[in-house]
């Protein structure tokens, strides 16, 4: 039962990854006992399972995910939210307004208007229906300040790092509060704009170089250099 690539090697769609008694994991498929890649990414063999960590992908909703979205439409009894995915999400008015509401009386656009950003959680989704959101948990709801960064959704785990090492380092170094949406949208709120910009730079760097090793160290170095430069300049 041979495998045809080394761990963390770059593969393209259609590459034969393994033959024989293997299980097709993420971004792979199995045909006649052969496992092929279905996306461009890095291979990972763990025991019997073959995975590809995709370098290019889009967000597919999953129940329980926290996402950051933009309101694109105000309806009669809820909002339509763009969550950076092939499917638009629905946020129901009864979920946002805890009191009973009447569509004739309450003006929903006063609560959330087109263009507003929300942090929400996916409570229901299947193939036949668009995902449904909730904001009824602490930490969720309308975003009032901060910077929003979009990255490839599959790279969110890389931004978190091993046991959260990367994200806690960025938080500590920049002093910003960072919320990661599973859909690849990241909210950064800091005391000063410069801090927020520094965190944004770090996240963009991770997005571009997610497939290289030793990234945490390089990002730390970059932040330190940038800080030193600013101190020298001012």
């Amino acid at each position, binding site marked *: 039962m041979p495998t045809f690539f080394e761990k963390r090697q*770059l593969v393209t*769609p259609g590459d*034969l990854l393994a033959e024989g008694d293997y299980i097709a994991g993420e971004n792979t498929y199995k*045909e006649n006992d052969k496992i*092929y890649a279905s996306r*461009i990414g890095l291979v990972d063999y763990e025991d019997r399972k073959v995975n590809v960590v995709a370098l290019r992908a889009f967000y597919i909703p999953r129940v329980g995910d926290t996402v950051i979205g933009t309101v694109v439409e105000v309806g009669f009894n809820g909002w339509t939210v763009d969550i950076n995915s092939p499917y638009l999400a629905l946020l129901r008015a009864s979920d946002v307004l805890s009191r009973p509401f009447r569509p004739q009386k309450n003006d929903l656009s006063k609560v959330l208007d087109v263009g507003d950003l929300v942090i929400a959680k996916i409570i229901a989704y299947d193939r036949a229906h668009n995902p449904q959101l909730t904001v009824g948990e602490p930490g969720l709801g309308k975003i009032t300040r901060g910077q929003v960064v979009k990255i490839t959704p599959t790279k969110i785990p890389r931004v978190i790092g091993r046991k959260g090492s990367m994200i806690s380092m960025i938080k500590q170094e920049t002093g910003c509060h960072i919320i990661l949406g599973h859909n690849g949208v990241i909210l950064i709120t800091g005391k000063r704009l410069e801090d927020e910009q520094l965190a944004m730079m770090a996240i963009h760097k991770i997005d571009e170089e997610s497939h290289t090793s030793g990234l945490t160290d390089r990002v730390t170095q970059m932040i330190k250099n940038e800080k030193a430069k600013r101190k020298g300049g001012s």
Partner: protein
Amino acid sequence: MSQKVEKLIDKKGLRLDGRKPDELRPIKIEVGVLANADGSAYIQQGKNKILAAVYGPRELHPKHLALPDRTVLRCRYHMAPFSVQERKSPAPSRREIELSKVIREALEPSLFLEYYPRTAIDVFIEVLQADGGTRCASITAASLALADAGIPMRDLVVACAAGKVDDTIVLDLMDTEDKKGNADVPVALMPNLNAITLLQMDGNLSLEEFEKAVNLAIDGCKKIYAMQKEALRAKYVNIKEVEE
């Protein structure tokens, strides 16, 4: 074309542009050239210059076209008015509509369309300069653009044509050879699965000649496939090299 004005193959057995019968035109491929598209690719094959852009999967409008069990793949092949000698009307011609369909059907088997029901994937192919064999180069570029958009696929699709010119079977016909030659056989292939997704023939060939042409086209496809993969990897490998 009964009377031949000029010889398409000279005494040495070389073609009009100096290629051997089984030689491809020079090819240059680039991936991720457009910032606004979800995925894109650019190909130069001889004098052909083609851009392909992919959007999606995304919400399908108008909604009644959406399918409950799979993604709708939409394809538009379009030639720029300045892509040929005589100005081409920018409106889609009969030929362009047909090629859009043919290209769509060549790409469809490579994609897992059942993964994302009720959505659409849009493929736009813009021919900036044409010199024969644009449908093949378009398929090669469009497939790369789909991979660049992160759309799951069975394999990349490559296409290449073979044909008969001056009673010789040749690979990768250019415009004059296509128009003045005897036959043209475009083939699209998923090389790793060894599956043909497009096979057409324009002109007359005997059964043996046809078989020879198809095999020659498949060999050409495999050569282009190597370049296609290299182009896709290049986007990421370059960053790695800069860093280390």
